[in-house]
């Protein structure tokens, strides 16, 4: 028995029951860095692609804000392309940036390293997954250039308008969007199966499920959600394509379009909404759960304190994941569905607030009696907790069916979901990139630039989205190109819109600090320590920094403890890596 009193540590790691997987070590540069089967390289391919297309979406949002802040000042923005920008901004950010970056990017980089595996279980499939994702992105980008332009159906793509003449991009644009989504889902499925199987099958000796870092838990459960939720989007995309291309009526009832009779009959627009949100609500957690997991690890590591309530955190992730499949119609309270659904979905939705609140308490309690190092990743992590509390609480307005009535379809909704699903996860993404940058590149980023980036992004986004709720309370609707003279809207709401636009421009420009820092530090940054944050998880214990193909040295690490041994009484150091057995712990 060891003298330290760690939460979960034993001197024994069970022997390996199967041999190690054999890796294909590419011999050419192209094999190593282009058609790569190394999950770490694939992760970076995913990451760079996702951030690149995300920057396109960022520019689109600035264009939207220019029109909203200074209506009809810029002649290159008109009602037609405005709604196309709105649509493409939303879809790119949710699917092609956030989903791809969290799962394809962080999932690929961190899962094998953190569970102590040489690579993903199916490296070849993993490689194809990225190239299929890239194809989906290119199809999406191509839709900007077809006649009629990209779809302007709103990112929710609600029929009938998504495929009828009155919406911009209702020909080539919507067809390419649906195709791109289909291709994305195929690519994701290849990657997603890999992540799940790797977590279940390829954990190293001693890495029990309940010793996994919460980052892996978050990504793991999010991937399962995605594997179950994306098929709903796939079938709706296929059915809508059929409605568009060969005139079936899955979602199309008998209707006219711009005064002309159509041949549609018998379809249900609300069916599409159920399918879309059966995907769309879990999608929120597909983005949020990896962020929850990562931020738990950032907070624990930089607060030098064991995550508070690890078991509760794991069960909360699982419970949120499960519940996320029975709340979807809270997006549809005023959709015209049977209003009695409101009772059920409001109840399930508010229940999901309980495990979510517990996660917040546990993050804050992790800081309590910690020894907090305000490194850049920690700034972002605490910033996340702040914005997430804000965004989570406004969810209690919209989830409660009655309160949703005046707020639905207004800027309150925009403010809520950007706070909770854009700002919060993006703060985690930045925190995570700064946190793992020394591992990925072997160099340190510039601390000063990173802090400027943090402050402008954190304060700037709060200045955008906090006041925006109040536009919604006044009743100002979303997806409007201009408001004209509307009696109930105050004159000053236009001033507020102008202020929000200025904040948005500042935030957008602040990202240049990030990009500059990432690129320049890659070449000129200080050489990084292999474990600069004195972290416990396996990725920081690799033989090489950055880790080579195969991740670890000749022997895989064995795991003797959970991932959060910070400040263990009796130990000399304030942290004990997962691969250190109790007998090897230096005593104080």
């Amino acid at each position, binding site marked *: 028995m060891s003298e330290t*009193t760690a*939460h979960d540590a034993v001197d024994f790691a069970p022997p390996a029951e199967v041999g190690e997987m054999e890796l294909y070590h590419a011999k050419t540069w192209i094999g190593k860095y282009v058609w790569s089967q190394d999950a770490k390289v694939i992760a970076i391919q995913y990451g760079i692609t996702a951030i690149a297309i995300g920057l396109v979406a960022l520019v689109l949002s600035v264009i939207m804000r220019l029109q909203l802040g200074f209506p009809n000042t810029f002649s290159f923005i*008109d*009602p037609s392309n405005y709604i196309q920008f709105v649509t493409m901004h939303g879809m790119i950010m949710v699917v092609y940036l956030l989903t791809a970056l969290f799962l394809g990017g962080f999932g690929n980089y961190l899962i094998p390293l953190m569970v102590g595996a040489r690579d993903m279980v199916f490296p070849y499939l993993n490689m194809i997954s990225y190239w299929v994702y890239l194809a989906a992105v290119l199809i999406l980008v191509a839709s900007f250039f077809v006649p009629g332009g990209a779809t302007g159906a709103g990112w929710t793509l609600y029929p*009938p*308008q998504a495929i*009828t003449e*009155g*919406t*911009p991009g209702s020909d080539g644009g919507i067809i390419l969007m649906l195709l791109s989504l289909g291709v994305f889902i195929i690519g994701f499925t290849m990657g997603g199966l890999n992540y799940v199987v790797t977590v279940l099958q390829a954990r190293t000796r001693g890495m029990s499920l309940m010793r996994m870092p919460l980052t892996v838990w978050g990504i793991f459960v999010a991937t399962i959600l995605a594997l179950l939720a994306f098929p709903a989007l796939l079938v709706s995309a296929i059915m809508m394509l059929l409605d568009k291309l060969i005139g079936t009526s899955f979602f199309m*009832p*008998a*209707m*006219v*379009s711009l*005064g*002309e*009779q159509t041949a549609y009959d018998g379809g249900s*627009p609300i069916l599409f909404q159920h399918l879309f949100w059966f995907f769309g609500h879990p999608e929120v957690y597909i983005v949020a759960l990896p962020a929850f997991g990562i931020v738990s690890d950032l907070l624990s590591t930089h*607060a030098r*304190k*064991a995550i508070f*309530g690890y078991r*509760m955190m794991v069960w909360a992730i699982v419970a949120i994941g499960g519940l996320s499949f029975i709340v979807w119609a809270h997006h549809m309270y005023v959709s*015209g569905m049977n*209003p009695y659904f*409101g*009772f059920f979905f409001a109840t399930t939705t*508010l229940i999901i*607030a*309980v495990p979510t609140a*517990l996660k917040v*308490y546990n993050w*804050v309690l992790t*800081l309590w009696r*910690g020894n907090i190092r*305000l490194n850049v990743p920690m700034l972002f992590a605490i910033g996340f*907790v*702040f914005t997430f509390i*804000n965004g989570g609480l406004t969810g*209690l*307005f919209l989830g409660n*069916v*009655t*309160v949703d009535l*005046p707020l639905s*379809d*207004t800027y309150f909704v925009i403010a809520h979901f950007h706070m909770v699903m854009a700002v919060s996860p993006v703060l985690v993404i930045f925190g995570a990139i700064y946190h793992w940058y020394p591992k990925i590149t072997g160099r340190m980023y510039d601390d000063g630039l990173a802090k400027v980036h943090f402050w402008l992004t954190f304060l700037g986004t*709060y200045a955008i989205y906090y006041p925006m709720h*109040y536009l919604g309370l006044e*009743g100002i609707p*979303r*997806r409007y*190109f201009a408001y004209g*003279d*509307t009696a109930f809207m*105050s004159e000053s709401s236009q001033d*507020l819109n102008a202020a929000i636009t200025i904040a948005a421009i500042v935030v957008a420009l602040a990202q240049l600090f990030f990009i500059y820092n990432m690129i320049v530090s890659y070449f000129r940054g200080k050489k990084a320590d292999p474990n600069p944050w004195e972290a416990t998880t396996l990725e920081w214990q690799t033989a090489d920094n950055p880790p080579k193909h195969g991740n670890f040295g000749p022997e895989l690490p064995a795991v003797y403890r959970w991932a959060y041994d*910070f*400040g263990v009484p009796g130990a000399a150091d304030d942290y004990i890596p997962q691969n250190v057995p109790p007998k090897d712990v230096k005593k104080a």
Partner: protein
Amino acid sequence: MVFAIVLILLIFGSLLFHVVSPWYLTELASNWSTIDFTLDLTFWVTGVVFVAVNLFMAYAVIKFRYNRNRRSEYKPEDKKLEGWLTGITAVGVAALLTPGLFVWADFVTVPEDAHVVEAVGQQWNWSYRLPGEDGKLGAVESRFISDDNPFGMDADDPDGQDDVLITSQTVHVPLDKPVKFNLRSLDVLHDFAVAQFRVKMDLVPGLVSYLWFTPTRTGSFEVLCEEHCGLAHFAMRGMVVVDEQADYDAWLAAQPTYSEILAMKAGDPSVGEGTYAVCVACHGAAGEGNQALNGPKLAGQEGWYMRRQLQNFKSGARGAHEDDETGKQMAAMAGMLVDDAAIENVIAYIETLPDNPPPTTIVGDVASGEKIYRNCSVCHGVNGEGKAATRAPRQAGMSDWYIASQLKKFRDGIRGAHPDDDFGMQMNLMAAILQTEDRVNDVVAYINTLSGKKPQQVATRENH
């Protein structure tokens, strides 16, 4: 330290913003004060949590800032604390949910004595139908919808004969009486939302949704479409006017029923010819237009559009703006049309005039105009032919100098901004994108290239 102070400033700054914000719920005009109550309650509960948890976090960041000589506490979990937190949160959530569900139960239960109004949405305008004296709305069918039957009325259904059909975007309701809006869409999704009434609901083609409220103060309240319905979504605006009973009754008496509309006599062109004599000076003997006298070409314009504009001129909804010199002239002339029959007759005559292309007078960049026109084509047609369903007149083959002058008037609020000009507001919003003279000329130059042909109707559904 700095970080924690910033967090504390953000917490109190957010509270302060909430207190001083001039942007908040509009003044309530319905019975749904209970909705406002649930919203206020949610603000209180979430506000307390927001302050408490964030202050706790900021305090922790200060108190437990890094000290190389200190160790963090090693406390992986605390079942009791976690249990308490779960319990308190569950209680808080139940306190929000319970009143919410009770109010929702009220919302889904329509009072039996509610007065019924059907709001009909289509890209991008509103119209309304009242059940008439029998209290029953007649049957409607999507396949019956046409320019002549915009509501899709089933002519054989006796219940529909006395239905009151309102093709204006404004509907009146009586004060203090519960009203149920049945919501029907002819094409895509829309949403019927009035900020001051608090309630809203989507319109879904293929089914009838509803909402109800009791108006509690008189006034005019804008109906906004709040479900994205295509390009001109932002320009889809209706109006609910809440009247005292007497005013309501007077308004209702002036609205035509379905059978009255069916019985309406068509205009007589031979009578109209006489009336047209006063128009000839400016609009030309063949309705060909005369730029020198500011008279646009009339021949070939849609009858329903001329009817609406003549009525607008007569009622003062158009041509009353002090800067609208030519509009004022026309308003004076339209006053000479004594009644609706006179309007019908003169329109009937104009419809017999030969439709010859007028000379083009506007020069502009056609490629630039084509880009702008993509915003116009959804209503006015890809060939500039006009569409009754979108209330949009023909553009192609009409006087180009006149279109340019009207676009500028719409842009500058000289035309269309009158509260009674039902569809003018849409053009005010749209013409705002024509910031410069060049852009006006570009789009008109593009319109000059259009054929004005009605596209062949491609799709027809079999009647069954």
